[in-house]
């Protein structure tokens, strides 16, 4: 890689990447971390030859397999088998390659029984599993993975991570972008931290992640309206984030987060949401208006959204909040780590006892009963809803 740079399309002078120079030795694994708009995806797309750099160059030795999105090119009308072939050839395999790996791919995805059904009848989980399975059996010399593990169930995620670890250990070069810092550090011994299109730090993963986490915390203290590292088409712009009175909340207390915005007045279908991140920038909980079914259809020239969490389940600590707003299905504004949430001890259970901070991250409502001296097992209820 040498002085690799790329302008953001349509924006004239903003560089999505600027003067990147780095080496990835064969057989090593490199994680790329950074907030939205830092240039991670642009870098991967250049290396995967999906877009071209504006200046600079990259030398790539060997076959590149990129997993930017799982199940790309699946055609709903085609059967699972046909889609494996279509997807595989799309990723650069020949028909013969796929012939010899079909059984493996299908077993990995666990869709044996549905292989000859159109994928439009597949559940989203099956769809994703099959997509990853094809890519995972590509056996490229260089594997590029961009944030695809945020989908699928936990067991399958583990399987995918396992497969990536296998490839990384088997002499393949892996470039891995993820917000899941735990997964990143499990697979990649070295990491690169991109910030506004430039390399902020490169080195051992632990060190790089530490710096990234610190930065995320401090950027959360910058006023939202002044942040430049945001995504979206700008139909709405968050100007301010207010957390309760001051910014201190207590576990079990009412938590209110207000998001002030400026926009053009319109009637539109609006989805607003926030994600709370923990100390390792790991997502803990996601709140969005479409989950709760709260319809928002009117926007003013300025205004405010309010999210109310009646009993905050978070244990005491420092959290950051990312916020986004989608208008008519398109991201209008998205700021990561837009605000800080400091949670202090509180009486979640209303018992006068403070919840334990030693284990876990959240409190949940629960109760205990005890039935001594019974031989039959306690009958358990199972709720269908």
């Amino acid at each position, binding site marked *: 890689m040498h002085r690799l740079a790329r302008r953001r*399309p*349509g924006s004239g002078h903003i560089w999505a990447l600027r003067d990147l120079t780095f080496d990835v030795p*064969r*057989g090593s694994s490199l994680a790329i971390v950074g907030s939205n708009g830092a240039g991670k995806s642009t870098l991967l*797309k*250049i*290396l*995967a*030859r*999906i*877009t*071209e*750099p*504006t*200046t*600079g*160059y*990259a*030398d*790539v*030795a*060997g*076959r*590149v397999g*990129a997993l*930017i*999105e799982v199940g*790309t*090119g699946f*055609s709903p*009308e*085609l059967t699972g088998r*046909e889609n494996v*072939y*279509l997807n595989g*050839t*799309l*990723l*650069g395999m*020949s*028909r013969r390659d796929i012939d010899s790996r079909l059984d493996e791919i299908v077993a990995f995805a666990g869709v044996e029984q549905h292989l000859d059904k159109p994928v439009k009848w597949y559940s989203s989980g099956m769809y994703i599993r099959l997509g990853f399975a094809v890519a995972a059996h590509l*056996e490229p*010399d260089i594997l590029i993975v961009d944030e695809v593990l945020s989908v699928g169930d936990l067991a399958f995620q583990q399987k995918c991570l396992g497969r990536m670890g296998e490839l990384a250990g*088997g*002499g*393949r070069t892996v470039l891995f972008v993820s917000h899941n810092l735990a997964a990143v550090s499990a697979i990649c011994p070295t990491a690169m931290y991109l910030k506004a299109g430039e390399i902020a730090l490169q080195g051992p993963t632990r060190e790089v992640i530490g710096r990234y986490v610190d930065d995320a915390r401090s950027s959360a203290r910058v006023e939202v309206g002044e942040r430049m590292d945001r995504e979206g088409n700008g139909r709405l712009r968050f100007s301010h984030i207010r957390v309760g009175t001051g910014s201190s909340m207590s576990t079990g207390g009412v938590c209110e987060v207000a998001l002030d915005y400026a926009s053009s007045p319109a009637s539109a279908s609006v989805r607003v949401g926030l994600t709370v991140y923990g100390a390792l920038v790991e997502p803990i909980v996601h709140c969005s208006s479409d989950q709760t079914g709260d319809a928002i259809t009117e926007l003013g020239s300025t205004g405010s959204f309010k999210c109310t969490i009646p009993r905050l389940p978070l244990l005491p600590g420092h959290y950051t909040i990312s916020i986004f707003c989608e208008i008519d299905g398109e991201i209008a504004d998205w700021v990561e780590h837009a605000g800080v949430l400091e949670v202090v001890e509180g009486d979640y259970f209303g018992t006068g006892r403070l919840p334990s901070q030693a284990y876990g991250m959240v409190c949940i409502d629960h109760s205990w009963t005890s039935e001594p001296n019974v031989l039959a097992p306690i009958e358990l209820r199972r709720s269908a809803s």
Partner: protein
Amino acid sequence: MKSQALVPRSISAHANSVRRIQPSRWIVPVDVAELWRYRDLAWFFVLRDLKTRYRQTYLGASWAVLRPVMTIVVFSLIFGGLANITTDANVPYALWVTPAVLLFGYVSSALTGMTASLITNSQLITKVYFPRLYVPISPGLTPIADFILGLLVLLGLFAYFHRAPSWHIIFLPAFLLLAVLIVTGVGLWLSAYTARYRDMVVGVPFLVQVWQYATPVIYPVSLVPQRYHWLLDLNPLTAVATGFRWCLLGLPIGSPLGLATSVCIGVGATASGLFVFRRTERLMVDML
């Protein structure tokens, strides 16, 4: 080195090939070796288009037969019947018009498909690298299947009129290839243009219609005054339409000059189309 033994063989096989990723120059050559490596993809694209085309239609693939039949019936009634166009060939009008109807059935499907191809495949183009040329080229090949099915209509008409095709039919693939060449050239231009402006998605059906009237499909060349024949010859599809009639009905083949012009235009359009498409390719992802 000792550690090299641990590296799987497939890696060392590729490791020698270092590819430099950099901004492309003014002329982007067509990477023939890569197209060959991805050849299976072209086949699966065509297969996908074939399989999805008539899925969930009641009549299914019989549409490939029904469409030309309806066109032939309408043309025969209006132009052969009401307008009484004489073909000065000893062939019933319905039979006479069929080869050209099949030709334009292909041209219309192929151009429509090629023009829209970048848009319908934008999900792929922005997410994965593969030789993009296959995106417009495949929908130019898919309607050949419809064309072949359409030949059944011709067989039916031969049987109905108690006639047999000419032995010239062995040259039909050559003329079909010429048609594919011309359409591919025009389609590459249209698809490259469509990456930026969507006008042609709307404009193509109209364009095809105009092209059809500018080609001796419903009228014979002899109906056009001699002094305008050079204009007909400039239209590369004139030679193909006449050639189809020569192959299938044994009618006189058109002027050699017209045929030569047609081949030149076909080759020129495809070559320039490839050039334009390759130029556009590097910016495509940002525009889609």
